[in-house]
């Protein structure tokens, strides 16, 4: 019988491989970013459960629709500019 040191390492997956998995198909509602109303507060980024808001050099970019499940937290928390939200939810397929 093999000792534990001789056994092959089993069931290892690449760290962070879930990144390759599409959870965007879960979405019933799609968040839409309206850049002109965005004050770059990044609340959407810190409150996103799915790391689905791309940020580069401290500024947000487009949604990562491959991972966004459409929960709507970003739209709820978005303070917007002058009462106008920078994120609105739209029904998918419309």
């Amino acid at each position, binding site marked *: 019988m093999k000792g534990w040191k001789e056994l092959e390492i089993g*069931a290892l*997956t*690449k*760290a*962070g*491989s*879930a*990144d*390759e*998995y*599409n*959870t965007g198909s*879960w*979405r019933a509602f799609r968040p839409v970013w309206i850049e002109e109303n965005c004050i*770059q*507060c*990044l*609340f959407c*980024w*810190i*409150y*996103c*459960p*799915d*790391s*689905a808001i791309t*940020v580069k*050099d*401290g500024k947000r970019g487009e949604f*990562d629709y*491959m*991972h*966004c*499940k*459409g*929960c*709507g*937290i970003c*739209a*709820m*928390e978005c303070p917007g500019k002058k009462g106008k939200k920078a994120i609105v939810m739209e029904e998918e397929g419309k």
Partner: protein
Amino acid sequence: MSTTPLRLKELSKKEDLLTGGHRMCAGCGAPIAIRQVLLAAEMPVVVANATGCLEVSTTIYPYSAWKVPWIHTAFENAAATLSGVEAMYRALKKKGKIKERIKFIAFGGDGGTYDIGFQSLSGAMERGHDIVYICYDNGAYMNTGIQRSSATPLGANTTTSPAGKVIPGKLQPRKNLTKIMAAHGIPYVAQTTPAHWRDLMTKVRKALEVDGPAFINVLSSCNRGWRTPTDRAIEDCKLAVETCFWPLYEYENGKLTINQKPKEKKPVVEFLKTQGRFKHLFSPENEHLLKKAQELVDKEWEDLLREERMWKAEEGE
């Protein structure tokens, strides 16, 4: 090494150590909290994860959402497993085989922390292991279908405390685990929510800095179990703090500080009424339970205020 300031612009330049593509429900509070914890850490960390939603949904074979060394443990022994890892680290460091400073974080839900993993958690804290245990408390066994736990609030409708003709939801108040952990006399204990990201991240940093055990209890919304729309995770945590259902406080070497005092303490019904699990409490026959829920919150809050006053008086502040 310079510390990343707790500003979102700066933090957003750090790598997210929990990736998207995990299978937690849309709008779950737990991954928000986990992302914030990992973003707060400024040193390499090793994570042990008790069985629960977080463990199951972030590591569905052959995928893993974790970019840190991660160990799945059974429901009851995240703290025990991590104690062993930390002890091994200390031994290897002593032998000069590891030079780096590494910290150890355990994540468990309320089921794995308040109930099933409670004895191993208590043991690890008492033995003084240099680990941080973080409980994400969503107030029931959500992973297996919303069974009541000792974290479930009074009156909540769960599948094992079903509100109906026989009982009006859970008959018992929730256990105050944060206080129980403080009674262990460990260097750092705190309570927070992911809605208060700066508070949460400050507390994680303090917990990682202490030499010895630390415990942080994080309120985490579950829209399936709380019966709320998927966009409520942050709003409901804010209400929990504004009503003093979930006060933000910390114990540093036994000394209590309340981190946020609402200017105007909202009635607890403000927190309860947005959630379907408490819907039945608003029927006339259950009015006494709403009253009781308010009394529980008031007592806990007044006790905290009294204790903090005592500390301040002692220090002549």
